[in-house]
């Protein structure tokens, strides 16, 4: 059955991607135009949906849009089964594709079975015995490094900060689950010269062996049978579209005798990519450093999103960002296996080349088939869940356990996350080694990859160059990162890209080397990060750090040199100045997770606008999906443009006029940004009007009717919503912003920030107060009883409290606050907030409780207690000692106290009972 799904990738027609950048004007840019020269049998994505069998024939696979829906029924059924059965087992099953060879790839069923039957999760997906060996050697090296307290801070920090931090973690190893992972970070002192060093020695792992995917067998390599199938199917499709280009990717200079601590590097960055526009192939990945195992789908998304979508009007340098969904069971795990293999090969070039040869051999089997195509339900399921995965700064930074398994629920970060706790970053190796023993965390083994999304930060350069074939130099340098902070990564990519254009690949190596020396990112910390002759000063705010602390340029403690790792360094005023009166409406929309689409003339405006929108509700975190720059080529295109179901809660930033049609059914539209002055065809419908500024009032003339294939209307900045604003606007603020010419844009932005921070504060006040009322009283915490629980959040009770003391009273602002609360309580932002509060409260309670237990006068208490009580307390103490939720809070001193308590109780128990409790003294 599965054999049917084996495609001969070699027979695919050369993809036609020439339409990608040439997607010039108007709505003529129907995505399916990319079929033009492919000669595929099925040009209509809709038809493909109906007629999945076309798939096998291949040829239409350059259609990135239809790809999720192509499937054969039989394959779909198996894919579905894989998902049902293997969700937990195969979270990083991607690894095994790496070396399982062509036979496995040709037989998906068998492979799936094998995966399922693998009782040891790590065994099922290792490359080979060598890899197993290497992995264990790595983990043992970590632990030895742990016990020795780590190497000293090395040259990276004269203050010795790093070394100290590391050893203190090593000392805490026993009590802090996270810290177990920490010691491997010592290895970023590249001097670790032990045989089990965790450095990726690229000499030892030849270029080919690290190439993320070769054409042909590429997707098979990346995706194994049990992996959620949406990814697979898409990857298959991608091979048509990008497969050819990937042959051209060069991963590392052959001569590079470098050693990069990928583990340390990946705490901040996933990789650096150079995307070029190939006249034959369209966007293609020219170079990637360090070699990173992204899935084909991820790579395709990165390629397409790194270039302007709809025209070539962005002359000069453009910096923008995007967000893509991560394929499941993705890179980190695969990198692990690969690196493990390389390390296992030893540092000798000889054995390493075996690795290379083996993988190389695999590449030469082009007909080895990729995994089964997607079942639509599987895809829907994945995306629906992921759609509600919050972006949460705390969660993403704290959930360093690895990529959160989508299947495990969107909020799985919660278990481990605790506000303001230092978080031990996890090395890929140790994380893999340690999590593989637990079925629960199986699917989340990974590294710095911490959420279901990856972020791209693009520096796109387009300049005239008569020497080139097309007369233009067009290239992007992209930082792919697990975190969205545009202020940091935008700065970083702006430093790296121009130097790269001047100096070439060694520059990327040098930059990566610098980054791999950076200490791990933690909330509430300040950093000085050396990079390419500059020292960036960064603050990663703590979870609930007030934005006013750093946002207001007139604040006394404002230091303009410090970059803040937040989403909200967008100059709100300059982005939204044409639609200021509607900004508060947008605040409401973002607050209650209403879908919004933002039309802009350029990716830069688009990403600023989208990030600006989600930052409106600061310090509340936006919990739905947002795409600061979304194109027709994004693999989620179909999902977001589908009309046959409700519009997903998301914010999309788009530039391609095609979306006017494709997203017409989205209820809320925002048009911002001055049209670019361009030589050739413009974006959304219009000629540069230059009059955008005057469009201060909502303009209804922007025709968004599906019938208008090429809207003739002027480009006018406006906000069109199918939503009735509930809260009264501040006219005074609007007047001030409109008429005070003396204020700079950034001062006006600060005013706006203040306004919205106050508004959010007023809105959240009652929620905070009500939540506080649900907490047990401190005096109810007793060492002799179980931990008291929080009371339940009852919406009705809460709304009653609002009627008495809501924002209408506290802020004096009129409006339908109750209605707004009702909508909010239904939306993911509330869920995310509420769960964060619960986590925080439970942690605080538990900490208090543990402290009380430690301080308790046990000697007094045991005096008059019978056996029953004694044993009960004993069991409870033991539970606390082993409870992971508690272990984070148990200091060595507390642990000794617990030990003393236990000894005391035991001494009061008769000998026979002691024995039956398993204690031998």
């Amino acid at each position, binding site marked *: 059955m599965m054999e049917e799904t084996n495609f001969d990738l070699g027979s695919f027609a050369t993809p036609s991607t020439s339409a990608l950048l040439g997607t010039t004007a108007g709505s003529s840019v129907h995505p399916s135009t990319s079929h033009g020269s492919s000669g595929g049998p099925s040009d209509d994505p809709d038809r493909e949906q109906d007629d999945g069998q076309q798939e096998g024939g291949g040829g239409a696979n350059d259609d990135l849009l239809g790809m999720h829906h192509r499937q054969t029924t039989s394959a779909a059924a198996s894919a579905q089964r894989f998902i049902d059965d293997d969700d937990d087992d195969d979270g990083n099953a991607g690894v095994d594709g790496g070396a399982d060879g062509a036979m496995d790839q040709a037989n998906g069923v068998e492979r799936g079975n094998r995966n399922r039957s693998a009782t040891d999760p790590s065994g099922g997906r290792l490359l080979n015995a060598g890899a197993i060996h290497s992995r264990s050697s790595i983990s043992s090296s970590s632990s030895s490094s742990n016990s020795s307290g780590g190497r*000293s801070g090395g040259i*990276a920090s*004269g*203050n010795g900060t790093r070394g100290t931090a590391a050893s203190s973690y090593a000392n805490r190893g026993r009590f802090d689950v996270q810290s177990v992972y920490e010691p491997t970070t010592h290895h970023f002192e590249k001097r670790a010269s032990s045989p089990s060093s965790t450095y990726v020695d690229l000499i030892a792992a030849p270029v080919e062996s690290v190439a993320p995917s070769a054409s042909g067998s590429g997707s098979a390599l990346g995706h194994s049978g049990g992996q959620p199938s949406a990814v697979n199917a898409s990857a298959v499709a991608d091979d048509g579209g990008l497969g050819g280009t990937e042959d051209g990717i060069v991963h590392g200079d052959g001569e590079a005798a470098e050693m990069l601590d990928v583990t340390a590097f990946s705490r901040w960055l996933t990789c650096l990519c150079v995307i070029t526009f190939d006249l034959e192939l369209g966007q293609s990945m020219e170079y990637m450093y360090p070699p990173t195992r992204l899935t084909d789908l991820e790579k395709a998304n990165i390629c397409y999103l790194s270039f302007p979508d709809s025209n070539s009007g962005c002359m000069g340098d453009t910096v923008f960002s995007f967000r893509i969904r991560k394929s499941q069971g993705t890179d980190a795990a695969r990198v692990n296996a690969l690196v493990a293999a390389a390390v296992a090969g030893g540092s000798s070039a000889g054995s390493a080349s075996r690795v290379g040869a083996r993988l190389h051999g695999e590449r030469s089997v082009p007909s080895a088939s990729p995994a089964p195509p997607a079942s639509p339900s599987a895809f829907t399921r994945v995306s629906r869940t992921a759609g509600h995965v919050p972006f949460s700064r705390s969660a993403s930074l704290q959930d360093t356990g690895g990529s959160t398994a989508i299947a495990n629920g969107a909020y799985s970060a919660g278990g481990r996350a605790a506000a303001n706790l230092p978080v031990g970053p996890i090395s890929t190796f140790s994380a893999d080694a340690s999590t593989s023993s637990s079925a629960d965390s199986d699917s989340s083994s990974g590294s710095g990859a911490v959420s279901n999304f990856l972020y791209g930060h693009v520096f796109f350069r387009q300049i005239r160059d008569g020497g080139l074939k097309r007369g233009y130099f067009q290239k992007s340098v992209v930082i792919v990162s697990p975190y969205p902070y545009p202020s940091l990564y935008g*700065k970083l990519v702006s430093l790296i890209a121009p130097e790269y254009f001047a100096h070439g690949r060694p520059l990327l190596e040098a930059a990566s*080397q610098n980054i791999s020396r950076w200490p791990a990112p933690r909330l509430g910390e300040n950093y000085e990060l050396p990079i390419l002759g500059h020292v960036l000063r960064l603050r990663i705010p703590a979870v609930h750090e007030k934005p006013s602390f750093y946002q207001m340029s007139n604040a006394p403690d*404002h230091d303009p*040199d410090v970059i803040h790792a937040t989403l909200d360094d967008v100059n709100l005023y300059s982005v939204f100045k044409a639609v200021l009166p509607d900004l508060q409406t947008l605040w409401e929309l973002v607050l209650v997770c209403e879908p919004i689409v933002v039309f802009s003339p350029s990716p830069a405006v688009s990403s600023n606008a989208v990030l600006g929108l989600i930052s409106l509700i600061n310090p509340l975190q936006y919990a739905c999906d947002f795409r600061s720059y979304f194109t027709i080529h994004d693999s989620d295109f179909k999902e977001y443009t589908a009309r046959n179901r409700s519009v997903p809660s998301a914010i999309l930033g788009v530039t391609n006029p095609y979306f006017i049609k494709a997203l017409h059914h989205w209820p809320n539209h925002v048009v911002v940004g001055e049209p670019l002055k361009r030589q050739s065809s413009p974006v959304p419908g219009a000629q540069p009007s230059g009059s955008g500024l005057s469009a201060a009032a909502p303009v209804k003339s922007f025709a968004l009717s599906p019938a208008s294939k090429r809207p003739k209307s002027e480009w006018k900045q406006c906000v069109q919503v199918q939503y009735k604003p509930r809260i009264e606007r501040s006219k005074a603020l609007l007047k001030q912003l409109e008429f005070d010419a003396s204020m700079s844009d950034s001062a006006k932005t600060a005013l706006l920030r203040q306004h919205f921070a106050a508004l959010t504060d007023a809105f959240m006040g009652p929620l905070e107060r009500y939540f506080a009322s649900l907490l047990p009283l401190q005096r109810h915490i007793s060492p002799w009883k179980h931990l008291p629980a929080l009371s339940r959040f009852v919406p009705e009770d809460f709304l009653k409290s609002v009627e008495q003391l809501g924002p209408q009273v506290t802020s004096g602002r009129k409006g339908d606050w109750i209605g707004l609360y009702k909508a909010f309580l239904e939306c993911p932002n509330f869920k995310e907030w509420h769960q964060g509060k619960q986590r925080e409260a439970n942690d605080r309670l538990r900490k208090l409780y543990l402290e009380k237990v430690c301080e308790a006068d046990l000697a007094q208490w045991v005096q008059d207690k019978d056996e029953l009580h004694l044993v009960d307390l004993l069991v409870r103490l033991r539970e606390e000692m082993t409870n992971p939720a508690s272990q984070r809070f148990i200091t060595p001193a507390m642990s000794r106290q617990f030990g003393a308590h236990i000894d005391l109780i035991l001494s009061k128990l008769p000998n026979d009972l002691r024995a039956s409790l398993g204690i031998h003294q």
Partner: protein
Amino acid sequence: MASYNYSYIFKYIIIGDMGVGKSCLLHQFTEKKFLPDCPHTIGVEFGTRIIEVNGQKIKLQIWDTAGQERFRAVTRSYYRGAAGALMVYDVTRRSTYNHLSSWLTDARNLTNPNTTIFLIGNKSDLESQRDVTYEEAKKFADDNGLTFLEASAKTGANVEESFIETAKTIFQNIQNGSLDLNAAESGVQQKTQPAPAVDLGDKPAANSGCGC
């Protein structure tokens, strides 16, 4: 960890042929330890240390460049804005000494005129393998207006002195006005505020001296 306070930041670069011991000198200076097996530097490494010169606390930001030719173009972009350049050769390998004039040309061309260039003959502990005499190098230094010391990253001899003497010279230049702190790429940043605006914990606040 103690919170440091300091009045200046100086940017240093360390340059010289591959294998002369640049990274080991840096490591010896920042960690007071010798690294016996030091792999090649990729691009540029970074280290900091706070020293005291004439009662002033000075934070040194030291960029240790790769000697490999492959990175030569890359490392050149680090020269900009350096207040001090430590130019290193290996007393046991004449070729590394012979290349000094090329390194010096780079340093002169790519840094500002007031950059203090300090010549270090490293591996002075390997007396038996010496290939370049002290006198010869001293003459080269004098001819080119450089300060010169022979040092050993292994024993630590003269390592502190090299870094600190360089800082003293820079500080003098500041005092006598020959180094203009307001110049865009002086490589020196003076801390004007008494306390950092943001509490940087054990990572002292500083306006970096390199325009970022």
